[in-house]
């Protein structure tokens, strides 16, 4: 089978059975009264990994991060860091530092003092502190702002101070809670790459909490998609996108067409038959009549006037219902005879086309045999 990733990853400790996880959540549960924020969760994170916890609000991702930082204690289960249990260790004795969503800069201290705070607590000699602070200011390009107070800085600059402060102690793990949430779109994109470069250069382990799937996809080595206190899937961004393990993940990440169908038997093998007349062989034997969906990403659906040919290509008749033009690509909403509307996107790789599609046009939508993902339940 083809590789799912679009580029080759040389760093993949999670695939190595001998690699030891750096951070381990072992059957961790956290309850607040009747509410279960984290539900019997187990997760391994490796050294130098850029790991993202992704999910909607209230999915438990922030609670997980706060337990790692020591602000919350697990109701049951254990968190291990570098082979040592963290239970009972207060936040101020953990070798992890956190960058807060609100930045949490000390308003009464200058930028310099903010960055020096953690070093001062460790009783580092003054000359060394000054040296380290200068180094950190250089790293985040804020040398000219050392004497300013946080309220004299712009949002982007505050974000950099928060980053410098959390990196100053050279923690083994940096926890980032929605690190780019308060920045505007352009600055956010720039900063994403800065964070990635920084993480690579310093050789640190980053655990980032985010609700922004693009952010998670761009920055991280692996993503844990969370919902209701559980991890639904942990995988690389490409695996999450191209091989989601559930409807939830498929729908949460990117756009997807869910073509519903039922399991049928053909020559003793299970196949999926949809209302649109598509049959797909199933990799495993399932009970006849069971509801199953075929998930197809919009960019994998092709719109054409001629009936597409080729071995195993699935084609459906349809009518162009809506056209959304985004500049870089166009999304066709195609109404199938069953009434279902599917989305097919195509890249506008050339300037203009010879004979463009129009509204209400009868066309074919098709996809390659490998393009669909069968999802149960």
């Amino acid at each position, binding site marked *: 089978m083809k590789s799912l990733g679009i580029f080759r990853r040389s760093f993949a400790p999670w695939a190595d059975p001998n690699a030891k996880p750096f951070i381990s959540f072992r059957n961790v549960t956290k309850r607040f009264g009747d509410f279960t924020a984290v539900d019997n969760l187990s997760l391994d994170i490796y050294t130098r990994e850029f790991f993202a916890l992704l999910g909607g609000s209230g999915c438990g991702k922030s609670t997980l991060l706060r337990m790692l930082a020591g602000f919350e204690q697990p109701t049951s289960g254990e968190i291990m860091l570098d082979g040592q249990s963290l239970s009972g260790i207060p936040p101020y004795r953990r070798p992890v530092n956190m960058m807060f969503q609100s930045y949490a800069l000390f308003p009464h201290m200058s930028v310099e003092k903010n960055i020096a705070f953690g070093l001062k607590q460790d009783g580092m000699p003054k000359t060394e502190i000054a040296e380290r602070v200068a180094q950190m200011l250089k790293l985040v390009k804020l040398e000219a702002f050392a004497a300013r107070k946080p309220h004299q800085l*712009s949002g982007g600059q505050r974000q950099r101070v928060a980053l410098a*402060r959390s990196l100053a102690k050279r923690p083994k793990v940096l926890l980032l809670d929605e690190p780019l949430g308060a920045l505007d779109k352009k600055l956010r994109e720039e900063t994403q790459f*800065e964070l990635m470069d920084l993480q690579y250069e310093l050789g640190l382990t980053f655990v980032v909490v985010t609700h922004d799937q693009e952010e998670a996809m761009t920055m991280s080595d692996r993503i844990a998609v969370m919902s209701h206190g559980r991890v639904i899937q942990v995988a690389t961004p490409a695996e999450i996108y191209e091989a989601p393990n559930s409807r939830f993940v498929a729908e949460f990440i990117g756009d997807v067409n869910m073509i519903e169908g039922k399991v049928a038997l053909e020559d003793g093998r299970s196949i999926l038959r949809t209302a649109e007349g598509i049959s797909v062989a199933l990799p495993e034997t399932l009970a006849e009549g069971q509801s199953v969906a075929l998930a197809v990403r919009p960019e994998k659906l092709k719109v054409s006037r001629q009936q597409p040919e080729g071995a195993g290509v699935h084609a459906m008749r349809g009518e162009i219902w809506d056209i959304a033009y985004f500049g870089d690509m166009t999304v066709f909403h195609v109404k199938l005879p069953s009434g279902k509307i599917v989305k097919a996107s195509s890249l506008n790789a050339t300037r203009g086309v010879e004979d463009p599609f129009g509204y209400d046009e009868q066309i074919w939508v098709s996809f390659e045999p490998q393009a669909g993902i069968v999802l149960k339940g």
Partner: protein
Amino acid sequence: MGRWSRFNVASIAIGFAFLYLPIVLLVVYSFNESRLVTVWTGFSTKWYGTLLTNQALLDAAWVTLRVGVLSASAATVLGTLAALSLSRYSEFRGRTLFSGMIYAPLVMPEVITGLSMLLLFVAVGLDRGFWTVTLAHTTFTMCFVAVVVQSRLQSFDRSIEEAAMDLGATPVATFFQVTLPVILPAVLSGWVLAFTLSLDDLVIASFASGPGATTLPMRIYSQVRLGVTPEINAICTILIGIVACGVLIAALVTRRRELQRQRDERAAFAEGMSRAINPPPAAAGG
């Protein structure tokens, strides 16, 4: 705002006259030359001079000052602690009862507070004097401090405390290096409030005090019973001056800080905008 109609001007004039006429009269008559309080005979500052020779008044002023400083300081510590615990542990059992009990003394008639203090001191066999007044004042002013500090804590961003601990500061270090400096203005204004309340309390002091610990309001009250003298007017004018100066300074400092902060924020915003439009090479991301 609306125009200055005759009605508006009149209502403001009447309102201010209602509030300040008695005080203005008092101040004016403190500069009266005559021994008779209500008859104006000429300008003089001699009553301020005779004040300095009135040993009883000076002693009372000294007692009041010491009681004020001590009780305000103790009340500030206790009130701040109460406010902190009330805003921190928002879900402990009996929180509503506890916070209600903190606020109750605010509306409790002073006579009752004073009387209950007296009963307590008698019951435990404490000799009434300087320390009992101080204790009583601490008790009744600490709830004011708690209210002031608690209202500041409502807008306090707790994540800065977590950040401090995350960076290795113990809870004690976090309190002294982060929490206290940030809430300090509220704590100080709580102190000033407690001090002022202690300064002008008559009722509770009368109950809690004993021989040898007469506070200034008590002394003034007992003198007034023998007739108002210009001397009393003079000392009251001084008291008014002190309080007015304190309020004015506090207001000016707060206002200047606020203006400075707004200016800084505008400057930072403008700079951020200009950088976003035309990024200098050093700040351009990459």
